[in-house]
């Protein structure tokens, strides 16, 4: 089905993913495995002045998972933690110009992993 193939934006982010890597001493981090397909995403963030100063990810997953990871991390970069927490998988899909229906759950993985890293920061921050 044509619903299986990716658009240009997705392919571009998949081929040249932004923010791949790791952060030494992150302010927040999370690793999440998708229950749907077993894909896994690890997110680390650095926060400065209440805003996401840096964000890095590593993803084990398909094209959609990697592209979602790339664009989602771009979307929250520079935003305040509060703003960043508002990210939705729909916004990720929109930014990608759409995903094949069967691949929508990959955008959920990106959304949730990023949120978990942000929450990890918030929790540590509260406690600290």
């Amino acid at each position, binding site marked *: 089905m044509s619903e299986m193939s990716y658009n240009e934006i997705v392919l571009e982010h998949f081929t040249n993913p932004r923010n791949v890597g790791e952060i030494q001493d992150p302010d927040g981090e999370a690793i999440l495995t998708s229950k*749907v397909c077993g894909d896994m995403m690890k997110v680390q963030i650095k926060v400065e002045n209440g805003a996401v100063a840096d964000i890095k990810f590593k*993803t*084990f997953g398909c*094209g959609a998972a990697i592209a979602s990871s790339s664009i989602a991390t771009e979307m929250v970069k520079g935003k305040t933690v509060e703003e960043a927490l508002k990210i939705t998988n729909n916004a990720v899909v929109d930014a990608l110009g759409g995903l094949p229906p069967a691949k929508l759950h990959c955008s959920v993985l990106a959304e949730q992993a990023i949120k978990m890293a942000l929450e990890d920061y918030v929790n540590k921050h509260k406690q600290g």
Partner: protein
Amino acid sequence: MDRHVYLDHAATTFVKKEVLDEMLPYFAEKYGNASSLHRDGREARAAIDRARSRTAGAIGARDEEIIFTSGGTESDNLAIKGVAEAYEQKGRHIITTKIEHDAVLNTCEYLEKKGFEVTYLPVDEYGLVSPETLEKAIRSDTILISVMFANNEIGTLEPIDKIGEIARAKNIIFHTDAVQAVGSVPIDVEKMKIDMLSLSAHKIYGPKGTGALYVKKGIKLSPQSHGGAHESKRRAGTENVPGIVGLGKAIELAGANIGGYAERLRAMREKLIRGIQENVSDVRLNGHPEKRLPGNANFSFEFIEGEALLLLLDMAGISSSTGSACTSGSFKPSHVLSAIGLPAEIAQGSVRFTFGDANKEGDADYCIEQIIKIVQRLRAMSPLFAQEKGMRKNV
């Protein structure tokens, strides 16, 4: 990237020039309906008769034992449902394996809903069915054994002659899905005691949309397509004359070249396997080391996901497949890889490369070079790989 290396011959092949040349006149010139009595009809009928002889000849069958269908899927459906319906008074138990193509598996599951019982035999780590286990599974109400000749994902060749022996001794109908085997492995239905055999033209440089089912004389088969009295009343529908002509030519060519073809493919395939095993760590070759289709190589690259690998290979001009072409894009780990005991996360990193006549000298080298680069790249962004390597360091 201009280079294009097609390594997905198990999904489909191109139609060979000699095959297309024989088909062409039957589109616009000799276009009669083979059921018509007039000259146009007789011409079409003669072409079908010739194709039937060629098809029968290629597998050691008799002309009247060949039924033309719309492909391997229809052949499998017709064989299994046709026997189930014809013999349900005798029994409602069917034996097959866990690693069949979906055309067999989903047909069996459908029959389960209709009250049949199906035993799905396990396979060993190489994908081999055990004839002993099969023999033990036979019951007094078993009416059909269906075991594929060669697996489409991992290429494993099943012990067909032993299974044929057992089935014949117990007087149970034996069907084999030989869609992947025809053209790569010599087949003789008489010697191998095969009662029914499915094949498909588009896997052997013939046209898509044409296949055949061999049904040994004397076996009853309830037709699954109802209509005109085509194919000796066993498969209704105006015959696809050019398609059938193409199948006839393709299978004749395949039979004439089988030895050299297999040798050529095996050489390229072995080069790829060696290249990968020597240059990539944490990789597993799925399937049997020797008992496998000559063109098939199936690897699991740990820590990465198959679709991502497939896409980057595609961008490098290499066409491959994750498991069966039919299930690409689905999430369940391949039922074949599960059956040979691969854990889901390793199965997820599996890619199949299948060689054929679209390949030439150097394709394996190019593929090795690209795989090394791409696997490295994907592992660099894999949290699993980082973990694993971190863990190992810590040991």
